[in-house]
Structures are given as structure tokens and as C-alpha cells.
């Protein structure tokens, strides 16, 4: 499902070069739940960005669903990302002026379809994440856990085969965190959705089928749960 072949990512910061990924190769099968761990600066987020087509590798290739996304044009990769990949961020990044329902609807609307066509889908997604009763609420009226659930619902709008989560519990209390991880696990199992999650938290990583430990842009250790 996801394949990274000898991927390098070097950032330039002024005169300095910072190597975020250093010849990393990785295969992730369809329906797998992979937790990526590592200290700050180890390259976890960069790995997710490359898989999600948010950034391009300096060297190497990134294949997602058998397509080389690292070579796609900007609009092509955007459209690919829109339907194939869902993102969950640490700080939720919901649009504060849109209601819960509208936030979930947003990716579908960006696809240019009238909102009314998607009402059943949005309703299902909100029910799925346990926010059916909060559809008309603005993000600021939701708790942290609820906001992250909403972010997950938005990520699932197109029923993408891949879900990328960057520190999804990093901004939540432990109970909310567990609930979010449980939800992601459930989605992974029930919908055969491939999940790649970057986390600092060993307990959170425990929810994955496999843990990939990164250090200095390289895989230090790979271990099944």
C-alpha cells in the first residue's frame, strides 16, 4: 500500500542543512496500523508529510497505492490526497467558523459537489465518531477529545484507504487519548484502513500492529507489537 525507497529529505535552514530522513526505506501493507516513534527531530512528521504528499523527498521514491506520488504535479497530488489520504493533526486544525457538520463536509465541498448530496455520509461519520448530537456545534464548543473525533470524521470524509495521524493524542488527556486511539483502531479493523501514526507515547504506539522506531532520519528498530 505504501512504499518508501531509499528516501532522503534534507531541509535547508539558512546556511545549514538538516537531514530529516536519511535513506529510509519502508513498506506498509494494506490494512496495517503502523506506529512511528522516535524523539523530536527524528523525522516522524517528515515521514508522514512525504507519505501524504505534503512534501517531496530530496532523493528516493514514495509510492502510495502503487503510484509514485513524489513525482506527481501539485494539483495531481492534491486531488490524490483529497480522496486517498485522511489527515489527523495534533492541534485538530478545525475551521473555527464552521460547525461540526460543516467541518466534515469541507473536503467533499472542496471536491466541488453540492453539500446536500453528502448529508447521509456526514451523518454516518458523525455517528461513527460519537458526535451525532453535536453536529451544529462550533469547534470552540467541543472538548479536546471531541475536537479530535471531529478531525477524524473529517479525515474519513472520502473513506480514504490511508489515515495519517501526527501525534493525535499529543494535546489530549489520557482518557480522551485512549478513546481516540480506540476509535482509530476500530476504523483500521472495520474498514481495512491503513493507519500510520506518529507518536512520542509508547502506550499509544501499543495500539499499532507494528512499531517503527526512528532516530536521526533512519529506522533504528522495527518490531511487531
Amino acid at each position, binding site marked *: 500500500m505504501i512504499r518508501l525507497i531509499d528516501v532522503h529529505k534534507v531541509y535547508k535552514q539558512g546556511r545549514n542543512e538538516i537531514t530529516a530522513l536519511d535513506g529510509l526505506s519502508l513498506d506498509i501493507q494494506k490494512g496495517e496500523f503502523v506506529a512511528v516513534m522516535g524523539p*523530536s*527531530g527524528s523525522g516522524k*512528521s517528515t515521514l508522514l*508529510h512525504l507519505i*501524504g504528499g*505534503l*512534501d517531496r523527498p530530496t532523493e528516493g521514491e514514495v509510492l502510495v497505492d502503487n503510484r509514485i506520488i513524489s513525482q506527481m504535479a*501539485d*494539483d495531481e497530488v*492534491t*486531488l490524490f*490526497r*483529497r*480522496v486517498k489520504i485522511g*489527515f489527523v*493533526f*495534533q*492541534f485538530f*486544525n478545525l*475551521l*473555527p*467558523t*464552521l460547525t461540526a457538520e460543516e467541518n466534515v463536509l*469541507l*473536503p467533499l*465541498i*472542496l*471536491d*466541488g459537489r*453540492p*453539500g*446536500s448530496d453528502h448529508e447521509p455520509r456526514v451523518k454516518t461519520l458523525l455517528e461513527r465518531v460519537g458526535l451525532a448530537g453535536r453536529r451544529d456545534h462550533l469547534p470552540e464548543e467541543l472538548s479536546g477529545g471531541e475536537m479530535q473525533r471531529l478531525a477524524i470524521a*473529517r*479525515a474519513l470524509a472520502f473513506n480514504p484507504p490511508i489515515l495519517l495521524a501526527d501525534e493525535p493524542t499529543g494535546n489530549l488527556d489520557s482518557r480522551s487519548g485512549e478513546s481516540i486511539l480506540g476509535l482509530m483502531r476500530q476504523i483500521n479493523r472495520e474498514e481495512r484502513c491503513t493507519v500510520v501514526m506518529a507518536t512520542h507515547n509508547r502506550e499509544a504506539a501499543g495500539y499499532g500492529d507494528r512499531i517503527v522506531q526512528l532516530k536521526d532520519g533512519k529506522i533504528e528498530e522495527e518490531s511487531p507489537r
Partner: protein
Amino acid sequence: MRLLRFLSWRHLRRHRLRTFLTFLGIVLGVAVIVAIAIVNRTLINSFQQTIELVAGKAVLQVSNGESGVREALYPVIRDTQGVRDAAPAVEGFLPVVGFKGERLFIYGVDFLADFSIREHQFAGAPFGLESALDFIARPDSIALTESLSRRLRISIGSEITLVTSRGALSYTVRALLKEQGTAKVFGGSFALMDLPVAQIAFGKEGKLDIVDLTIEEGEKIEAVRNRIRQRLQGAAEVQRPQERGEQIESLLTSFRLGLFFVSLVALFVGFFLIYNTVSVSVVQRKREIGTLRCLGMMRRNIMALILEESLIIALSASLAGVVAGVFLAQVALLSVGKSVSSLFLQIDLAKGALSLGDFWLALAGGLGISILAALYPAWEATQVTPLENYRQTAWSPRSQGVFRATMAGLLLLLFSPALLFFPAPGLGEVGKFTLGVVALLIFLLGLSFLAPLFVLVWVGFLRRCLSRWSLLSWDEWRLASDGLGRSPMRAGITIATLIISLAAIFTIAAFVHSVRGSLLSWVDQMVTADLIVSSSARTAGPMNVPLREDLAPGIKALPGVQVLDLYRLIRSTYQGRPILIESFSAQASASVRRLPMAEGKGETALRQMAAGEGVIVSESFKSKFGKRLGDTVELPTPSGLARFKIIGVYIDYSSDSGSVLIDRSLYKKIWHDELVDAFDLWLAPGADQQEIIQTIKENYGEKYQLFVSTHRELRDAVVNIMEQSFVVNYAVEIVAVIVAIFSVINTLLASVLDRTREIGVLRAIGATQGQLRRMVMAEAGWIGFLGGVLGLIAGTVMSYHHVVYNTKVLTGWTFQYYYPFGFAFLCLILSVALCLLAGYIPAKQAASIPIVSAIGYE
């Protein structure tokens, strides 16, 4: 200072484009103020200077406008006790044949008496008594200045032909004047003639324009003045030269106040540009300010920092504005000089120079306005908490400030009409006009403060509509309106700037449109003649040379001419203030003439006027002097004070100082004046207009330098004169448009920067670069639409108030309000189009934001 260097300087450099735009906005505003100050001062100085130069040593002057002083009164004046020297003169402009645009200021003097008052320095051999007698003895003598003789290449002994009331007459140059004293006026376009020769040239036989006086030592000026007044019994006025200057100055009051209004608008627009820039800068730097507060910076230091930043820009921009203003003034003076010469009187405009007062005014204006405009945003900056830099989402002041702004807006809106309904007692025309302008600006400010509320209302309305019409695609437009709703204050500031700019543009445009409409409608009613024949200028006024009546029979006899009437216009005074006296024969043109009336019936009034039962006064006269129908006016005439009953009030836009219309036969009898400014011709049905024009030109054209205007041409000439006088106003329109564009670019750039993370997220969840570009453009479009609609509403109220109230207060004219529908529509389209254009740069920036760095938080 160190903080300024560390933070402000770097911030200003980092936002070079915005800093430059603000700088340019202040430069433009200050330049307009400086230019108008220079123009206003130059106008006044020029009048005073001319009067002082011509007056020479005179301490008193006897004159009676263009009505003149009967020559028979000269001995009476001269022989009054206390008068030492008396010098009679006639004066005026005459065009030079063969030199297009060249007009000479002719001063006709009594050569034997004049040297006691004025020192005329002649070039070459001394100009003694013998030379003077020789000059006088020959009735075609003229003395030109050396510079004029060089410019026209006319030396002593050569001939010069002038257009006089008797047609083109040739004069021989018998002396050259050094450009000293009186000869310095009008850039050397000055000529001396013997008094009787000049009287013939101007058609003022038996009349004097002025008698200059000096008094015996030990005599008091006031005492001598009173003695002369008593002897003249109202047949002329006795004034000090300075008072005469002030009287002429008062002619220009409304013109100068109009310019002042324009500079006030420029200042107001500049104020909002600075307010906008500083506000946006504060919003954008919330986190930076939060960090500074965390690091221990006091609130007052934050305030000082923001104010100092504004001062740095304002100081440099004001200085540049002063320089730009001096250049702008030179351009404006050309146009203003033309307007004043066409509308009021020929003026010898001095070169506009910057005075120390102008410099300080500009500097104080630029700096004061900047500080004032930056004060509120700077205070807002002090309200930023140290926690601001911990916020992870874009700062979202949904309701912050909106309530306060709304309350302030409502208060100002209520206060604005109160100023008009309960004015301070004892206010004059100028005071009421100024109050009217201030009320307008307060109204505008009030509406601008309501802009954030309008943004929220609009976003709410849009949400409801778009969710109801779910079939409509709402993606980019909806997101764009949400963007606005998230920062109603910031969007409100831009919309407020648009409102102000657009309102200023629309008010000026609607005013010009209404004036044009009213003027044309008035010309159509007032001038019904098919052809108007005049000399030297198409319209009766300062450029026109009056002709003698003896041309009339020849013109009347032309085949096809059915009715001929003679029109005369002179400048006179009433209660010491300048007025116009107009006359025509109501009897001769009874069958064809109409008169636009403000009070009374035109036909009845004209009939009464023809019967010599009274005069018809203009509405400006009525309002300036507080007269009513049936009242009596006492006018100074060459025959002494004459009383007339007011039998009607007519609409007259030829002068805002007030006009009195009198029948020609009565006028001739009392004023002893048979001159004609225009021959009005009504043609017989089926007459060939072109053939008659051709015949008049062939018979009289060359000799009298005639203009034969059709009704259409006269209309065009009136519009041209009007357009010319509004040229300076258009400069402000340009400033307003530029400021509006700056503001939109400013706000949208800040909005994009402020929402970097959100834009990153949108890109991450699948928004294409095109979609983001369209979203930001749509936001600009909404701003343009809202600003356009509200600006038009404000402009409509303001222009109506300005046309109907302010103008009436200042000039006494009642203008019809003509709504410029086409221009209003264009404004709306332009507002949206300009905002879309201005949104392009921010839109491009939004689309090119790298996703990773936008959403990155590690």
C-alpha cells in the same frame, strides 16, 4: 531607540510593500493639503499685491465697481477738505489683436495728476512735462512695459492693435515703462494710456473707475473719508486699498472653502489609511507583542513602540509630501488661475511658494493625523496578554471590539445630525458650512465604525442563504465569507477605508453631476436665445470686452433675426459686499424670454420689471442679505443711491455673491451705461442659423473679435468653465482610489499571513492552489461588494447633504440633486473589480504557502 531599531525597523523592512504603500498614502494626503494651502494663500496674496502695486501711495480710493464714478464728481472729490492729491483712472483688460491669449491691463490716467500718487519709471530719456504733453496731445498714444515690448517685439513708434468697445483700434507706442511699481502687475502685461483715450477704449466716456487719494498731513483718514462720503451721497464708495482687496477676496470665499473641503477629505482619507495599516500591523503581531509582554515589556512601552513606528513613517512621508505638494501647487495654480479668471476676475497669479506656515501646517497635519490614527490600534496592542504567544490557532477576535465599535458608530451617527439641527447660535455662512462639513465627516466616521457589525450581519445572512439554497456551490465563496466573519474588525477596517474612499469619490462626483445638471437646466431656461454675440470671450464675465450699443441696429436688420435683446453684466457692491448687476430689456424679449424663478411668477415679474416697477434678485442675494419679496434694496449707482423694490427672486448660478436683475432702460438711465456684454438673438422660424452666423462674422467678426455662439456652444462653454473649477477635486478622487487599493492589499496580505496554518490545513485536506487563490480573491470580492454598497449609501447621504444643505448655506444657490446612477453602478463594479485586483497578490501568496511549514508546530 534600541527597541525601535530591533523591532520596528526590522518589522517595517520586512513588510516593505506595506510600509511603502502607507508612506505613499501619507505623501499624497500631505501633498494635497500643502498644494491647497499654497494655492489659497497665493490667490489672496496675488490680489493684495496687485491692489497695493496699483494703489501706489493712495490711502483712500473712491470707486463704484463696474458702475463707475461719474467724471463730474471728480472735482467734488478732489476739492474735499483734507485731500492733498487726487488721481482719476479707468482700468481694465483689452485683448491684443494678432497675439492669441495676450491681454493687456490698461491703466488710463491723468498724466498730470497721476505722478503724485504713482511713480511711473520710463525707459530711455527722462519723461518730463514736455514728454507727457506730447504723449497726451496725440490720442493714439500708449506706453508699454519693456518686457512686453520685447515679448511682442513692438518698439517705440510701432503700432499695437487692441480689441476695444469700439472694435479693433490701433495705438502707437510712444514710451516704454520700466517694470517698477505699478508696471510690475500682471507679469508686465501692463500699458498706460491717457485717461480720455482709455475711456473711449473701454466705452466709459464720462466715467471713472477709481480716484486714488492722498491726504494732507495731520488729517485723519477717517475724517477725510467721512467728508467725501457726505459729498458723494452714495454715488460711490470710499475705501482704503486694503479694504478693496478684502472685498475682492470675499468673492473667492466659496471657491477657497471648496478647496478647503477637498483638503479636509484628503486628510480624512489619509487618516483611515494610517488607521488601517497600524491596525493590521497590530493584529498581525499579536504573538510578537505577547512575547514582548512575556519578556516583561510594559503596556506603555508597547503603546510608545507602535506610536513611534507610525511617527517614523509619518515624518518621512510628510516631508516628502511637502516637496510633492509644492510641485502639485504649481500645476494646480495653472488650473485655478484659469478658473478664477473665467469666473471671478482676471488675476495676476504669483508663483506659489511654500511658506514656513505651510511647512509647519503640513508637518503638524501629517504627524498629528498619524498619531491620532495610530492611537486606538496602539491601545489595542496594549491589551494583548502575555498568553498570546501560547495560542495555537489564529487569533480570532470574533466579537472583540465589534461591540465597542458599534456603540461608537451609533453615537457618532446620532451626534452628526444633532450638529445640524442644533447649531451654535450666531454662526455665519462660513461657520455653518464648516459645521455641515464636520457633520458629514462625523456621519462617515460613524458609518465606518459600524463596518465590523455589517460584516457579521452579512456573513450570517450569507450562511442562512447558502444553506437554504444548497444547490448552489458555496465552496470558495462560503469559505471566503467565513474568513471575513472570523476577523470582523480587520475586515471592517478595510471596508471602512473603502466606505470612506468611495463616499469621498461619490460625493465629489454626485456634486459635480448635480452642479452640471442644475447649470445646464438653468442655462436652458435662462438663455433661450438662438445665438449669442459677444466680444473676446464666449460668456459674459471678466474675459469679455463690452461693446457699444450702436452695433445693435445692424444686427437687428439682418434677415432672419426676429428678436434682439441687449444683455449687460457689471460688478457692483451692496452693503460693501460684491454683487452682480444684470440687465436686459424685458420688453424687447417679452415674447421669447423666460426666467427661472425661485419665488414669484416669471411672466409677472418680467412684466413689472419692463414697467420699471422694481428689480428681480437672485436667491444668493436673497440669502446673503436676508431680503424678501417686496423689500427694498438701495444700490450705489453713478447717480447716487437708488432704491428698488424686489419684485421676484430668480435662480442665477453666474455668481454666488448675489445678482440684481434690472430692466435695461432703467439701468441705462440710472447707470449712464450703454455698453453691451452680449447681443441675444432669436431667429425667425426657418431662418438659416449658419448663414446668419457667417454674415455677423463677415460684417463685424474681425473688427470686434466676436464670438457668435449657438445655444449648444454656450452650454458647452458653461460646462467647460465648471469642469475647470473642479480639477483640484479630481486629485482627491485619485488619492482616494489609491488609498482604497492600498488598504485592500494590506488587509488581505495580513489575513493570509494570519491564516497560514488554516491555509496549510485546507491544502492538506485537498484544497488545490487554484481553490485557495479563488478563496482569497472571493474574500477580496466580498470586501469590495460590502465596501461598495456601504460606500454608495454613505456617498448618497453625503452628496445629498453637500448639494442641498452645504452649498445652499455657503452660496445661497439651490441646486437640484441629480443622482449619478451610471456612476454609482460603475463605483460598485469598480469597487469589486479593484478589490479583486488588489486581492491577486495575497491570493498568489496564499496559494504558494508551503503546506508543511504552514501546519508545522514542532
